């Protein structure tokens, strides 16, 4: 799943650690999500969306199977 987390974080001048703090997860989790290695749960995706004042679809984009 693609996401804009890194861009949104950079726009708000946040480090991975600061975003992790805001979302109550580890920095490792933020890094893994940004790199597309880990897809967050729905509650975490909602939390991120609320934090940035966006919808989940604004942050995460499904990649249809080829």
């Amino acid at each position, binding site marked *: 799943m693609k996401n804009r987390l890194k861009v949104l974080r950079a726009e708000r001048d946040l480090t991975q650690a600061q975003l992790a703090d805001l*979302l109550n*997860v*580890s920095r490792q*989790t933020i890094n*893994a999500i940004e790199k597309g*290695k*880990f897809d967050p749960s729905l509650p*975490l995706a909602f939390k991120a969306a609320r934090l940035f004042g966006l919808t989940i679809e604004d942050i995460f984009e499904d990649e249809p199977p080829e």
Partner: protein
Amino acid sequence: MTSPESSNTNWKQRNNLNTKRLAKWTAAWVLSLALATFGDKFIWQQSELITAIAIGINFLIGIVMIMVNKQHLTDLDELQQKIQLNAMALSLGIGLIVGISYSTLDTTGLISSHAEISHLIIVMALTYMIGIIFGNRQYQ
């Protein structure tokens, strides 16, 4: 945007506290196991009653250790839980397969020594540690 200070500090503190509690109870369990195993021979000179009490205490500490471990796992974040789950699945699977094969080697007489449960625990512990290391690398 809310301040990150309060909620995540609590989350981090809780995780640190859980890890320390787990380490303490694991150490207590290992020490009580050593006491139950060797106390009979070296401390209370083969008193069955004291040995039974020592084993009972070891068992009870083991139960507390399981509960503390459960709390530790529950409070981890979702990626950390996934890494733990994968490592435990690997450890359980390998433990089952190796354990059955090892036991069969013993019962069929293909190995001269008896199959010891401690060997299986070593295999499971090593597999779990390898699973944790690979899991963390995978999500770096």
